[in-house]
């Protein structure tokens, strides 16, 4: 065999190997690029029941659709081992799209320590998520609880009148996570 530095096949192999390694590195990067891509896609489409984590803007003269009613169901769940009692005070409401409503979730710290938690909302069915607007929500901020403290946490929300007419029930679900514990 020839000296690899002068052998044209060996040189071609080295060139191709470098290119293929570049593809490998690019695909490794693509795996990570899927994270922001997915975020954007979910925000835009409301995919996966994502509802905005920002408060909706209150505008005067927003229309109320009196002609139909939608049932809103409230669900609460705790992430595994989160030491809280966490429940909605009403489990369902009948609402008119366009009108503002307030309801409360109650949470109580069951431990003797100060705890911080965060609620993460999700709306089902997924396509309704974009039309679920929250003016005020305890899920926007982290919630700190003194030892044994219990309190009501308000949600002020409104369904966009653009909500598809075949949607008769919308479920708002909160999962309560304990913070400070990166593992979740």
């Amino acid at each position, binding site marked *: *065999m020839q000296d690899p530095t002068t052998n044209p096949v060996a040189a*071609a192999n080295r060139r191709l190997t470098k290119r*293929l390694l570049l593809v*490998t590195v690019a695909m*490794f990067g693509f795996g*990570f690029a899927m994270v922001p891509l997915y975020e954007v896609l979910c925000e835009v489409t409301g995919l*996966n029941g994502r509802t905005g984590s920002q408060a909706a803007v209150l505008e005067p003269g927003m229309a109320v659709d009196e002609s139909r009613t939608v049932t809103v169901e409230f669900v609460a769940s705790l*992430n595994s081992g989160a030491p809280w009692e966490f429940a909605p005070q009403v489990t369902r409401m009948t609402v008119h799209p366009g009108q503002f409503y307030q309801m409360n979730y109650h949470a109580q710290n069951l431990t003797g320590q100060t705890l911080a938690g965060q609620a993460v909302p999700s709306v089902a069915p*997924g396509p309704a998520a974009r039309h679920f607007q929250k003016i005020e929500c305890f899920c926007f901020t982290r919630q700190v609880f003194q030892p044994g403290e219990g309190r009501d946490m308000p949600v002020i929300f409104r369904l966009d009148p653009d909500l598809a007419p075949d949607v008769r029930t919308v479920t708002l679900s909160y999962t309560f996570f304990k913070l400070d514990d990166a*593992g979740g």
Partner: protein
Amino acid sequence: MSTASPALDHDHDHEHHGPARGLKRWLLTTNHKDIGTLYLLFSLAMFFVGGAMALVIRAELFQPGMQIVDPHFFNQMTTMHALIMVFGAVMPAFVGLANWLIPMMIGAPDMALPRMNNWSFWILPFAFTLLLSTLFIPGGGPAGGWTLYPPLVLQTGQAFPFVILAIHMMGVSSIMGAINVIATILNMRAPGMTLMKMPLFVWTWLITAFLLIAVMPVLAGAVTMLLTDKYFGTSFFNAAGGGDPVLFQHIFWFFGHPEVYIMILPAFGIISHIIPTFARKPLFGYASMVYATASIAFLSFIVWAHHMFTVGMPLAGILFFMYATMLIAVPTGVKVFNWVATMWRGSMTFETPMLFAIAFVILFTIGGFSGLMLSIAPADFQYHDTYFVVAHFHYVLVPGSVFSLMAAAYYWLPKWTGHMYNETLGKVHFWLSVIGVNILFFPQHFLGLAGMPRRIPDYALQFTQFNMISTVGAFIFGLSQLLFLYIVIQTIRGGAKATDQVWDGAKGLEWTLSSPPPYHTFTTAPEVK
């Protein structure tokens, strides 16, 4: 294992006369035949390790209730069985075949990057030692399923970083192997061997290698994110920190679906060699086979979410992934048609490789059809995570990929060793395998349709009979592989002398070499007309 005769090498005496002696030969070898042998023996060993785990699973499922192992160990068995069979048995077996056969098929003296070739093999024993060692550390091995879904997989104990590192090592090994295959095929072909003259095993491997370098890095990224989520406070998949566990499923299956084609495309290549040989006719529709393989590879990138129809995608997404998935049936159908058309009016004989190849065509098609059923999104909501899925992918992987590997072993073993295997024992092995595998997996379709979930150590009473039948089949299939081991060892040690062409219908450059081929072949490139 080959006793290459140094006499055949005398015309280029500035090189080695033959392999070095002893353990060093295998540790330091850069010879594609030696490395191919190492890959094949390693994958055979892993096939038995993973198979033993499968028998633990089936033994526990023989009866309802908990009999033999505790649920946590059962879950470790399902997870490890999958990881070992996918990354330790099937993938290295195909890489081993690629090493042995691609240089001999395209008239190249060796792989393009022989030193890297040595490295990509020798990473594997370390990776799997690391993975298997997790069974013995406190808290046990990974038990969250081979798909490693968070948040469940993040509950893995001390084994977790070991598993991630092992997967990284397997990925590095596969990527290096794939780069080597691409460089060999694109740069080392003999003069006159144009792309559209390449044997189909070479074509399918070229496409597989591109799939590997495209998706193995994505898996590496996904498991790295799991690692940082668990130990470094990131929140890629942690909802409390604004992440999303469903994102992992998207990234994983973006790797995972091409991965299943990585495990079947080389099998298509093998079958496309064996059927023409024993039908004594050229392959029907060579060009359409190449285009069908490329189409399948392309489609594999845009169907991943059919593994996760139930996560709550918008209707448009579900429909897209459903139709894209169904589209794969078209190129696959072209392939099955071509194999059948090759056999049509051929002068067929039924030696062991041909038996395995025909069983492949029939049983892989059954697996393909159950896949088509699963691709129907409204039906998938019922089938999801049931034994129907288990039956489906085992049909395409066991009587699919594994049978093609068995067929390849019987077909090329005389070429590699210079000895004919025992045809009677080969046929016994075939019939035990084909009967065993159907008793094992066919009832699992019914279990799934009746609602038995996968990955559970205990089940409701009405599933008992089919589970018992399945377990009996598992032991028939599993134990009959010991016969395969015996046949392979017997053939390596001796047997009737194989001719150069071995099979009278065999075509291709590898059959122009002696059996066994000399240690160095095609140091002067052959002329391909």
